[in-house]
């Protein structure tokens, strides 16, 4: 058997909507077999993974808590990817934002009025932006591949964070745990609803709406798409590739940094050796699952947050490693990419062995 692709004259608008849904369905089906392979009841496992987290109030709250950083990261990354800039170092920019944002609460612990939060957020955003500027500038100035440089900086940021949390920023009263002093007062993000959904949800929603407007209606958004799809045409339109590299990296770094400080000033409440269970990488999947569209990313972010909760649920209920989450996320991205092909191509399966010249079909003119 052979797969044949037939190019559609124009992209299919139906498939634009349908392809993520098909991808999710295929992931669930593949998940069925994965569970079968590791020897658990697939239906029970799928229920625990995908449905159970949606049945309790606290877990729906947890869903939004997890979705916020993922959405913030993914919105920024989508701008990068649309412009054909492959920032895959959001995990590092996330850490950089967390570190920079923690400067005041750790070094000036007494400053805990409400105004310190503004300073922390600004620092977080700046930290992420500056860290993302490194691969951008290396690409602009030297043509160094941004995929590799941005990824290498993830390891560097994580090691630096590890050093800070174990070394100079460790809480002297913390019984030797590698944590900073806990944030308090105005150093902690205000709660919006429930016990854990914080004001950062508003940031995520605003980021989604602004990004949607920029991409849909503004010249900047138009520049991003043109330079991403056809750099030569972008130059002909008088758009600057280098400016766009810097801009998209700064925006995505800033948003990742914002997510980072919101995480340490929110659910975590202190700086630790690790501040993210891979949100920076999950953001990549979410950006693609949302078809690089901010509205789509919002829903994709919720889905991937569900996959974290489902993984935790699996570990508790069935004793399966929570690494199952990453397997699911990887499979989902595979299927999303495969289904995107349907937007531009029709797919035909051809049985090999028969000679095409032998058959004289005249019907399909």
């Amino acid at each position, binding site marked *: 058997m052979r797969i044949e692709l037939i190019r559609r004259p124009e992209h299919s608008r139906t498939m634009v909507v349908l392809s993520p849904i098909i991808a999710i369905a295929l992931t669930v089906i593949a998940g069925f077999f994965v569970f079968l392979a590791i020897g658990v009841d697939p239906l029970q496992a799928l229920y625990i993974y995908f449905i159970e987290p949606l049945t309790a109030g606290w877990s729906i709250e947890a869903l939004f808590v997890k979705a916020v950083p993922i959405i913030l990261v993914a919105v920024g990354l989508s701008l990068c990817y649309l412009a054909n800039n492959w920032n895959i170092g959001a995990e590092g920019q996330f850490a950089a934002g967390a570190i920079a944002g923690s400067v005041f609460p750790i070094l000036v612990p007494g400053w805990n009025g409400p105004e310190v939060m503004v300073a922390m957020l600004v620092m977080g955003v700046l930290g992420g932006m500056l860290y993302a500027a490194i691969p951008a500038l290396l690409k602009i100035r030297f043509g160094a591949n941004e995929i590799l440089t941005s990824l290498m900086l993830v390891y560097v940021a994580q090691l630096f964070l590890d050093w800070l949390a174990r070394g100079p920023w460790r809480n002297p009263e913390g019984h030797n745990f590698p944590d900073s002093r806990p944030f308090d007062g105005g150093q902690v993000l205000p709660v919006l609803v429930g016990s854990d959904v914080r004001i950062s949800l508003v940031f995520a929603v605003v980021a989604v709406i602004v990004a949607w407007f920029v991409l849909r209606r503004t010249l900047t958004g138009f520049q991003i798409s043109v330079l991403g799809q056809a750099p030569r045409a972008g130059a*002909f339109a008088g758009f600057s590739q280098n400016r766009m590299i810097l801009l998209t990296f700064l925006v995505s770094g800033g948003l990742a940094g914002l997510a980072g400080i919101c995480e340490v000033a929110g659910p975590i409440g202190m700086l630790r050796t690790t501040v993210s269970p891979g949100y920076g990488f999950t953001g990549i999947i979410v950006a693609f699952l949302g078809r690089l569209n901010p509205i789509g990313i919002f829903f994709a972010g919720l889905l991937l947050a569900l996959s974290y909760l489902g993984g935790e649920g699996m570990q508790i209920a069935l004793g399966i490693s929570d690494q199952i989450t990453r397997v699911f996320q990887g499979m989902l991205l595979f299927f999303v990419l495969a289904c995107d092909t349907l937007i531009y191509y029709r797919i035909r399966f051809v049985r090999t062995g028969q*000679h095409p010249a*032998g058959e004289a079909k005249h019907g399909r003119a």
Partner: protein
Amino acid sequence: MATGAGAVDFPNRPKGEPLLAAIGITKDFATIRANDDINFAIHPGEIHALLGENGAGKSTLVKILYGALQPTGGEIRWKGKPVAIANPAAARALGIGMVFQHFSLFDALTVAENIALALADPPPMNQLRARIEKVSAEYGLPLNPRSVVADLSVGERQRVEIVRCLLQEPQLIIMDEPTSVLTPQEADDLFVTLNRLVAEKKSVLYISHRLEEVKQICHHATILRHGKVVGECDPQQETAARLASLMVGAELRQLQAPAPASPSAPVRLAVDHLSLPRPHAFAIALDDVCLDVRGGEIVSIAGVAGNGQDELFDAISGETRAGTPGAVRIDGAECGRRGVNTRRRLNAAFVPEERLGHGAVPRMKLSSNVVLTRHATREGLVKSGVVNFTGAREVVDRVTQLFDVRKGSPDPEASALSGGNLQKFVVGREFDRKPGVLVVCQPTWGVDAGAATTIRQALIDLARQGAAVLVISQDLDEILEISDRVAVISKGRLSPPVDARGITREGIGLLMGGAHHGEGAAHAH
């Protein structure tokens, strides 16, 4: 007389069994039938022309004969026996060789490696190099087997293609538009080689839309239109006009070209001692280019591809900036250091060679492609950073009407248009602004005759209304048809422009070969 396929004897044609016969060849693609019941035969020792417009189905047919595509229906007979040509290797094994229009060469590999790739069972490299040197000398096609293809000129690349084909010892050589990239002198050299092949009783299938050269060298012609054979003839017995009307299916509209403006009209576009280093290893440096284009005239730049045309276009449009402000002047304003949008605001307009990916974004709607070149021209398409796509759609409608752009829906993606219609859109998008200076590269490359006539007439009309029009083209017929003055670019240097009325193809050809760097300049006048 031209008649339906195979109906009449042609007394001058070699008799006997055809070398290759196509019987009822049909090829369907997803949405179109590219070949429809095609019948024709090639005899031994004959140069057989396959004539037709862009999109008539010539390329599809030769790909089928070469095994690169499989027909949907029909049969190919080789020396009388039905054969299935499953792939190009099978074609080569039969004795069919091919010289591709857009060369099928590998830039990063050497000449010998390129040739080895086309041989079923190549000898060791040392022997192969010796054979290449021998064959290329025999046929007057000098080549160094150790050269890397990226470093070769267009003419040399074609030599590689031909020598590669000859080393396969084919009985039939298919040549797809072989002279479209050559200077007239290089084309004459090619014809000598072809005559040698025919003398050895080899056959040539010669695909072209250049009627004069078909009349000059071909023994027999099959004419395609809309995927069907519409006639065959002995081209030496026909007039070019008659062949053209067979190809196009109607009499072509004649261009109306009133006299150009007086030589005292103001210079609207000036290029003044423009020099640029080459941007990368495979590019051409511009060397002291000087040119004035006055309002009311069309000046053309002829030249073989890869002699600095792209670099010159980019420098004039502002995609590449010149070293000094005075190097490019539009209506007297110095803009050598300014970008493309500043130049557009000076009422200049630009149409690049590549439609898809340079002049237009393939996967974007036509309205977005209007915004592409007109977002900064203060026409209200962008207000405080927000794009007015409704206004852009109105532009699409105007262009559609003005240039008769055929499309399936009101605002399709650029890639959904045919080459000719997209070219009309890309040109029309700039005409809609009523530019004072227009620079256009290859205005009718790969478009059908109807669209070509429309575009050429529009260029002439624009100039006669007072605009300065600069055309960069490799199509000498086009240049001679529409230009008032002609200059030639060669290795990044531009010859002084000469009056188009006094010049011949051969005169331009000498300049294209680089003769103007010295005594040759006088020869061209």
